[in-house]
């Protein structure tokens, strides 16, 4: 018989039927079901195939710790792999598929791996395929060949390639008390803190508040625990100072009591509500934190413990009580502690037959005998399960006498038919968040568990207090008392002692017997998700991996998506036994964020998609309206080309660049960084930050300047205009505007606070247009009023103030294009007005607008450098800018720029390249002396920028080449195997066009 829905009971809404599919087959469930409970109710036991051996796996747990039942959820083209079926709430239209199986879940080819099981031990793949190079079959190359197939055979879900269209958001929250977990302890803590007037946030990773109260079957305050929890949560909803976050996993505990959480806002709906994100990433700053995160039940390790039908005891209890699902009809239990007896009784009440309770302990309390009697279950004390029977579903178990003192098995093994086996290996408090916060867990021999240390309410960074099962207090009565005390303490209150709600619960000793593993023939799994067996752990020990950190990495125990929530302690116990040391001496690994899987989308949130910030120049709308193809450069959007219909990008920029050199062109340069440097010591300050002199610059003139970093490498370049005796306007490259500003501020704030200088970022205050070409001056003359623009009034690097179409403008004659050129600056709000006036004035002269591509072409032809050449590795000398290095004064970088390595031969130097086969060159292509297409090697440099030059009629490039200057006039080759482009080039000076500057000096 297979699992089935009970006739009554559970907290599902039996009147609401929900339709979903799993592996293409249609199923129905009820509102309130998880994918796991709904599939179990439909008789499904096989959920997936295991990671390494492709063993059939069912569902082991009912919650976030599930290692086996991982599925891929499909939403349109978007696939989200490795989601625990126990955490998926079903909704109409839900489409889920199983993973790691081919061709189907029931018939999986790679399941043959099980036959070779003895071979596939820890480190098998690496040992076999990466061994020392003996012959052709063992080497790294062979590993690389095999890896593709191995990775395909092993592994979990497959990620999709479709873009995730869901919206995510980020939220900051502040509170006095954050309560993590809403079981009885968490509910009491939240209520107590809220009653003190504290601002409280209560987070619960499940859809419903209440934790264990939802399935314990206990009675609290005279009513079923689940009803009590619902009432308590409902009352909290009414508090103005309490915020309740269901479906919210607190996954990170960071310094200063900052906690990270993910709220699954819309995963349980067919589609998000209006304005709803899919996930919300909460960054919660809490004055104090109550950790009421409960405990995880541990599996026992014995052969066949991974067969579908084997499940944790509390999980089965939960399926019965919360979802009205019986995981089997003839159920056996295997336990080392008392908690399983309550589970047995719950399943008996739900309609199952309890065929046996196998208990490793030689004797039992009378209370447990009483519970077993009520469950009409036979107790086999002093016994252990040594094997499971069946194929893809459990048909029976084999038990044998067991001595828990020495682990010895005795007597004949006998079979007991059962379709479900529940195991309980004790409980481990969920101490992950406390561990993240730096708390060192302490081993408690009675509980056989790591418990959190005493709470730290002092100290600057972590202020948390624990309550309930988290502290190792496993009874509900203790949880309620500790919860209230923790809530009061966290809120800084004392509160009059009032009666606590009474609890009626099954009795039970919280301390398990110290038994983790039954050693018998066959594979006993420790880490279900990564297929790590007890034997793997011992093998690792025999091979010398005795540190728990090494053990983890070698066997991959606890490194799967469940992060060892069910496997860490059993693994540690087996290791401790192998080492002959007690568990606390073996130690445990520290938990790190995240507690459970977090969507990358939620972390990125509004940095992507429609809410991503963007910077637009004042003339942006004009560019778009006039046919510009916009290009994103950092946050900025700039015109790439103003293409004509039918033109390619190359045709467009070649036309724009050619027209600029033949008549005139205009380009938007508003994105250049602009910094006002003002004050009595402004000139002196600029002398210190630039390599060349600025104190000698006359008012009304501009100068090209170069900055170095402290280490002597080139940093940024640009022109700085002296607008007044104490008033300079510095321009920087677009990309470095922020860095240069920070650089200047650092020196003024930290190194040289005395100079009277103030720097202000004015990038967004000015609109800039650069107009260049033989007709540029005539165009300005036609539209500028209030000043002459002839050579006398406006010489090279001169500045004048005038008006264009009634708007004040500042014009500086400087050239990036190599043509007679001017930069026209106006107030940003008038940018489009001035731009349009210039366009209008330019019409009779054949003025064209040009974009970044043509701008790049014109500068490559001139050999000017940009960020592609000032790449943080080049010096002024490498770029032939040593003429700018003043010897008359120290400046930032002057002491370090002459270091041995920076002036040594063999450095990459800026050169020009001309393609000799008349084919385009590619940015990033390498340059070699001798071409060897089959085995490219010995690069002597690389291309930094390239274009078709209309002025030269050739494909050209700028490049950084070893000893480049000395190679001028020689030939080399480009070698670009990725793009399959090889060809001869000539190395020339970077000044391709008009090297003496006659055109710009005019």
């Amino acid at each position, binding site marked *: 018989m297979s699992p089935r829905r009970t006739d009554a009971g559970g907290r599902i809404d039996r009147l609401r039927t929900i339709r979903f599919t799993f592996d293409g087959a249609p199923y129905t469930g009820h509102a309130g079901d998880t994918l796991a409970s709904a599939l179990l109710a439909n008789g499904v036991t096989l959920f997936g195939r295991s990671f390494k051996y492709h063993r059939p796996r069912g569902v082991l747990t009912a919650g976030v710790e599930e290692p086996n039942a991982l599925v891929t959820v499909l939403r349109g083209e978007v696939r989200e792999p490795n989601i625990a079926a126990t955490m998926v709430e079903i909704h109409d239209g839900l489409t889920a598929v199983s993973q790691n199986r081919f061709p189907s879940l029931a018939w999986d080819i790679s399941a043959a791996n099980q036959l070779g099981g003895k071979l596939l031990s820890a480190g098998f793949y690496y040992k076999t395929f990466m061994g020392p190079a003996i012959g052709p079959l063992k080497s790294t190359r062979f590993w690389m060949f095999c890896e593709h197939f191995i990775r395909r055979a092993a592994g979990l879900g497959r990620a999709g390639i479709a873009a995730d269209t869901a919206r995510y958001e980020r939220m900051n929250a502040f509170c006095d008390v954050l309560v993590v977990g809403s079981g009885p302890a968490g509910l009491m803590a939240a209520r107590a803190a809220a009653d003190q007037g504290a601002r409280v946030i209560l987070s619960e990773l499940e859809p419903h508040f209440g934790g264990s109260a939802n399935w314990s079957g206990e009675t609290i305050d005279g009513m079923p625990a689940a009803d009590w929890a619902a009432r308590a949560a409902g009352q909290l909803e009414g508090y103005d100072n309490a915020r309740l976050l269901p479906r919210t996993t607190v996954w990170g505990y960071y310094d*200063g009591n900052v906690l990270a959480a993910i709220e699954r806002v819309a995963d349980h709906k067919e589609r998000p509500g209006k304005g709803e994100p899919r996930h919300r990433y909460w960054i919660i700053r809490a004055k104090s934190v109550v950790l009421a995160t409960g405990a995880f039940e541990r599996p026992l390790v014995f052969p066949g413990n991974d067969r579908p039908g084997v499940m944790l005891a509390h999980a089965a209890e939960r399926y019965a009580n919360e979802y009205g699902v019986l995981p089997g009809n003839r159920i056996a239990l295997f336990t080392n502690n008392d908690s399983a007896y309550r589970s047995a009784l719950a399943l008996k009440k739900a309609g199952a037959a309890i065929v046996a309770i196998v208990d490793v302990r030689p004797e039992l309390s009378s209370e447990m005998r009483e519970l077993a009697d009520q469950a009409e279950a036979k107790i086999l004390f002093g016994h252990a399960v040594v094997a499971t029977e069946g194929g893809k579903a459990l048909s029976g178990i084999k038990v044998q006498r067991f001595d828990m003192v020495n682990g010895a098995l005795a007597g004949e093994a006998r079979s007991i038919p059962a379709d479900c086996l529940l195991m309980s290996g004790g409980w481990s408090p969920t101490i992950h968040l406390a561990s993240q916060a730096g708390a060192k867990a302490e081993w408690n021999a009675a509980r056989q568990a790591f418990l959190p240390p005493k709470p730290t309410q002092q100290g600057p960074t972590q202020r948390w207090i624990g309550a309930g099962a988290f502290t190792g207090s496993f009874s509900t009565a203790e949880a309620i008392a500790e919860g209230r005390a923790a809530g009061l303490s966290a809120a800084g209150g004392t509160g009059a002692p009032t009666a606590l709600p009474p609890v009626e619960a099954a009795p039970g000793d919280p301390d398990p017997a110290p038994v983790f593993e039954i050693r018998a023939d066959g594979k006993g799994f420790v880490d279900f998700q990564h297929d790590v067996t007890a034997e793997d752990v011992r093998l690792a020990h025999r091979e010398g991996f005795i540190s728990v950190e090494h053990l983890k990495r070698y066997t991959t125990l606890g490194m799967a998506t469940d992060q060892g929530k069910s496997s860490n302690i059993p693994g540690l116990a087996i290791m401790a036994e192998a080492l002959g040391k007690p568990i606390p001496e073996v130690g445990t690994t520290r938990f790190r964020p995240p507690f459970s899987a977090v969507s990358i989308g939620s972390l990125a949130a509004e940095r992507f998609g429609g809410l991503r910030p963007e910077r637009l120049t004042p003339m942006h709308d004009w560019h778009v309206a006039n046919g510009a193809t916009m290009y994103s450069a950092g946050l900025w959007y700039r015109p790439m080309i103003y293409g004509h219909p039918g033109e390619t990008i190359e045709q467009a920029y070649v036309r724009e660049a050619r027209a600029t050199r033949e008549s005139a062109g205009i380009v938007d340069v508003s994105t250049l960084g602009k910094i006002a440097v003002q004050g009595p010591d402004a000139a002196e300050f600029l002398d210190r930050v630039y390599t060349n002199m600025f104190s000698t610059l006359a008012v009304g003139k501009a100068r090209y300047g170069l900055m170095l970093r402290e280490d002597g490498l080139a940093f940024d370049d640009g022109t700085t205009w002296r607008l007044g005796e104490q008033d300079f306007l510095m321009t920087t490259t677009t990309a470095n505007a922020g860095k240069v500003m920070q650089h200047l501020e*650092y020196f003024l704030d930290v*190194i040289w606070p005395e100079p009277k200088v103030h720097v202000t970022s004015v990038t967004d205050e000015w609109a800039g247009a650069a107009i260049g070409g033989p007709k540029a001056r005539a165009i300005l003359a036609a539209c500028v009023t209030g000043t002459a623009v002839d050579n006398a009034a406006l010489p090279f690097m001169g500045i004048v103030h005038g008006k264009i179409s009634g708007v004040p403008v500042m014009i500086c004659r400087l050239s990036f294009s190599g043509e007679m050129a001017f930069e026209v600056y106006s107030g940003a709000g008038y940018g489009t007005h001035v731009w349009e006036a210039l366009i209008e004035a330019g019409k009779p002269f054949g003025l064209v607008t040009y974009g970044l591509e043509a701008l790049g072409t014109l500068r490559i032809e001139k050999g000017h450098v940009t960020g592609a050449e000032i790449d943080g590795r080049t010096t002024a000398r490498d770029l032939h800018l040593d003429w700018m290095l003043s010897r008359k004064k120290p400046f930032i970088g002057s002491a370090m720029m002459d270091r041995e390595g920076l002036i040594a031969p063999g450095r990459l130097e800026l050169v020009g390249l001309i393609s000799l086969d008349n084919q385009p060159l590619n940015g990033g292509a390498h340059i070699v002396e001798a071409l060897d297409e089959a085995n490219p090697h010995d690069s002597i440099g690389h291309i930094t920028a390239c274009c078709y030059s209309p002025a030269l009629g050739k494909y050209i490039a700028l490049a950084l080449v070893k000893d480049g200057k000395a190679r001028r006039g020689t030939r080399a080759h480009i070698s670009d195997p990725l793009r399959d482009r090889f060809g001869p080039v000539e190395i020339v000076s970077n000044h391709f066009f008009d090297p003496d500057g006659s055109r710009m000096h005019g």
Partner: protein
Amino acid sequence: MLITCPYCGPRDVIEFTYQGDGNRERPQPASQDLDAWNTYVYDRLNPAGDHNEIWQHSGGCRAHLRVVRNTLTHEISSVAFTRGDHKVDARHKAEGKI
């Protein structure tokens, strides 16, 4: 981590830019002592405990701050403006270099 900016009050670390070890002494601008420059440019203290650091409130008032932070606990024991309290500048001032 919160840094209490003297202008803006307690703000999240996300608003600040780390500007490095605050113990570095910049040689005099004209110094040709390459060892001193090398120490200044490349050597950083990395203490386990209180560390004298420079942070800029780049997402706020943009002031540079001298922050004493415990590298083990992230406890911040003092925050002050850097302006006017730099040892090297005081020495330069005494020597009439600035």
